[in-house]
């Protein structure tokens, strides 16, 4: 931790010249197009290392990623973001930051509200959200699909589930930006985001205690932890933090990357319009090829992964996106094959930390793509605009200018 506020502003990272020995997932080259970099790293070794981030490994193959994801003895989830600093662990977000044996009970509390059946009940609201958003820009013939569409769908859906006003979505988006993007290099931004979010949810917790309802916050307050005791406020707050942080820019990114692909690939667009039953299969392929989420672990004990020694004290950049591009696991790994038959992609993780919101994310992606294609079947990237991508842990388009209708 820093001694003074100014000391927490860390210097900008020097540009990378040697990816294999000095990788940096916040480098602008990586942000713009990580795929060739992963190929280079994978050709060098199943596990590579950088001195940046106080020491960090990255598994580059599906096999190495899987070994680490399954090994909770040597790899802890107590830190799930690779950052410049390693402050004391304070704001936990169970179960994503939990290891066994605490992990299972913390996860079981969250699973029932996110089953596919529960998501079916939420689906009509998500469909309505998508159409409300499209109504706002469809007459214009152009829009930034990230700023006007993909960004708002997950945040409104999760607000609806939690029973909080959908209009508070902009606040959530600000906190997520502070924690996941600015927070990699700036401790103050991170803590300010966490503090504001905690205050906001604490107020909602107090309200639900006085007037319980059927929303997810009330369900968590009623839930029993291990030993039959109600969850502590700290635990409920942590899980709410998780749902917000993990449930928003992730799916926003996944929907955005799917639309980006479809904007550039008329043949896939036409096929999905002709065969809407293929959309779920295509969604799985978009999840594989453009997986948004990279996780992290902390090495607790020395071990070997795919024959490579890894030492305690280092972080691990657990790149499910890179695993999903491994040609040893997926034939034509660098091609988007929307009717891919065998697809054991790891976009939602592998092992005990499988994303608790995967059914929500899939439903949101499917509905968002279906509704967009129904109303905007023909669209393309705006050559006058620029597509930009988020930096760091979650990858997806943050600016996605497209033309359609009269401009298509």
């Amino acid at each position, binding site marked *: 931790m820093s001694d003074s506020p100014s000391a927490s502003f860390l210097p900008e990272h020097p540009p990378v010249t040697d990816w294999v020995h000095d990788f940096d997932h916040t480098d602008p080259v990586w942000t713009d197009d990580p795929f060739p970099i992963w190929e280079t790293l994978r050709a060098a070794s199943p596990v590579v290392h950088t001195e940046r981030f106080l020491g960090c490994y990255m598994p580059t193959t599906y096999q190495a990623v899987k070994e680490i994801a399954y090994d909770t003895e040597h790899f802890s989830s107590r830190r799930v973001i690779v950052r410049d600093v390693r402050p004391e662990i304070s704001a936990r977000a169970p179960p994503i930051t939990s290891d066994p044996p605490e992990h299972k009970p913390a996860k079981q509390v969250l*699973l*029932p509200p996110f*089953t*596919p059946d529960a998501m079916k009940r939420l689906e009509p609201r998500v469909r309505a959200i998508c159409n409300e958003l499209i109504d706002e820009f469809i007459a214009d013939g152009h829009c930034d699909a990230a700023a006007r569409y993909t960004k708002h769908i997950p945040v409104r859906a999760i607000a609806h589930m939690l029973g909080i006003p959908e209009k508070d979505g902009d606040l959530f988006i600000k906190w997520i930006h502070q924690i996941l993007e600015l927070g990699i290099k700036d401790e103050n931004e991170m803590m300010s985001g966490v503090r504001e979010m905690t205050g906001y949810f604490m107020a909602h917790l107090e309200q639900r205690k006085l007037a319980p309802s059927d929303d997810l916050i009330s369900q968590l307050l009623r839930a029993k932890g291990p030993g039959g005791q109600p969850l502590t406020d700290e635990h409920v707050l942590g899980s709410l933090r998780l749902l917000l942080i993990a449930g928003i820019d992730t799916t926003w990114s996944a929907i955005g990357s799917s639309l980006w692909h479809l904007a550039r690939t008329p043949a896939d667009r036409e096929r999905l319009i002709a065969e809407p039953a293929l959309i*779920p299969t295509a969604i799985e392929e978009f999840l594989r090829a453009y997986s948004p989420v990279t996780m992290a672990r902390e090495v607790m004990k020395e071990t070997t992964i795919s024959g490579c020694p890894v030492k305690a004290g280092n972080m691990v950049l657990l790149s499910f996106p890179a695993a999903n591009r491994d040609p040893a696991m997926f034939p034509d790994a660098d091609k988007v094959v929307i009717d891919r038959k*065998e*697809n054991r*992609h*790891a976009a939602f993780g592998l092992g005990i930390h*499988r994303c608790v919101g995967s059914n929500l994310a899939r439903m949101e992606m499917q509905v968002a793509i279906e509704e967009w294609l129904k109303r905007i079947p023909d669209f393309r990237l705006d050559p006058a605009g620029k597509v930009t991508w988020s930096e760091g842990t979650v990858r997806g388009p943050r600016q996605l200018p497209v033309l359609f209708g009269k401009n298509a």
Partner: protein
Amino acid sequence: MSKLRIRVDQDKCQGHARCKSLAPELFELDEYGNAHEVGDGTVPAGLEDKAWLAQTNCPEIAIEVTEE
């Protein structure tokens, strides 16, 4: 064609629910979203392709398909 039988390994299943989505006739989910084979796992005639599809899309390799 020989008869197929499926089984979900409960130690491996993490609730990705890909099987339920690809072969809803053959799998059911419990309250936590983890998958179980329907009945004794016997695959009715005509659903063999779906059984294999579920097996080859499970990220945890939790589904066993045996030919009887």
